[in-house]
């Protein structure tokens, strides 16, 4: 890391938990609502059940989302909500990405 080109430093410091495309998609969807059910998250991100579970576990491990388990009648329902840390991480990630863009492409 210390031998890396200093120009690449901003890219190397990107939060890899957020940078992964599927996890970025999950966090983006969660940031747009208070609480999102597994089924909707699966539909809108296009991920399989297994992939979605594994990515949400990683995000939960990083403290970026929390899982809410409930029952609707006898059916177990899993929902997710983004944590404050998750919101901060997503915002910081967007900021970092924008900073990496050439001036003419920034909005």
């Amino acid at each position: 890391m210390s031998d890396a080109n200093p120009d690449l430093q901003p890219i190397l410091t990107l939060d890899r938990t957020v940078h992964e495309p599927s996890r970025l998609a999950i966090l983006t969807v969660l940031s747009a609502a208070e609480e999102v059910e597994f089924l909707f998250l699966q539909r809108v991100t296009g991920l399989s059940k297994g992939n979605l579970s594994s990515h949400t576990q990683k995000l939960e491990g990083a403290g970026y989302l929390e899982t809410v388990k409930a029952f609707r009648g006898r059916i177990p329902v899993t929902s997710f909500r983004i944590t404050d840390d998750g919101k901060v991480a997503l915002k910081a990630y967007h900021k970092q990405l924008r900073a990496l863009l050439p001036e003419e492409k920034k909005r």
Partner: protein
Amino acid sequence: MRSEKACEKMAELTKRYAAYGAERGGLVALCGGLLLGGISALGTWWSSDVVALNLSAWRAFYGNPDGRGDILLPLWLRLTAWVMPFLFLAVSAWLRHRLYMGFGRVKALEVKQPTPNIRIYWGGFLAIVLAILIAMGFGAFKGGNAAGLRLLGECCVGAGFVGAVRVRQPRGDEMALLLLLWGNAGFSFAGTIWLWVPSSWLMALFGLILAIRGLFQHRAFLELRRELEALDPPEAADV
């Protein structure tokens, strides 16, 4: 890598979807509007002979030949009017959760800081509800149950029309419809002619307007559903 545009699109779809569950269920307004319009029109049609008789005799402000100025609807119609608000509540709850959350439930972002406008509106609304309860108790105490019901009906219709002015508030249309249905139910037991005729027609008109509005909202929802269905199906295999 997913582009920023794709992320924006996902966020936008989520917000729109959540909004339909929370406040813009078009079919809810459509059903409520039809129920309100239907029961108002039915009551008006049923009582048209009595109303016409009174109006032709210039008795609208003086009361019926029995001297009370009430319109007495048949029992089945009164019971139907009382069933309507409950039916509407059940239908709206069912539609919101079953139809509008078909891809899984999504809770919309909460508005953390209500604007002063919304605060004034809700404050006013709560004051009206309180006034209804006081009026009901007072009316029942002074003039028996019928007078209490009449006051309840009149207050509910008034509150419903106040609510109708702000139908753009979250669930405002549902709230206004519910109040008007309660008002109609109150009237069905003890409505006075001079309030009955204009209120019934206004309620029927308002029900029709909300039903049409609901139809357009539902069409917009169907478009959203098509967009969600057109998304790539979930991957078959886990990676």
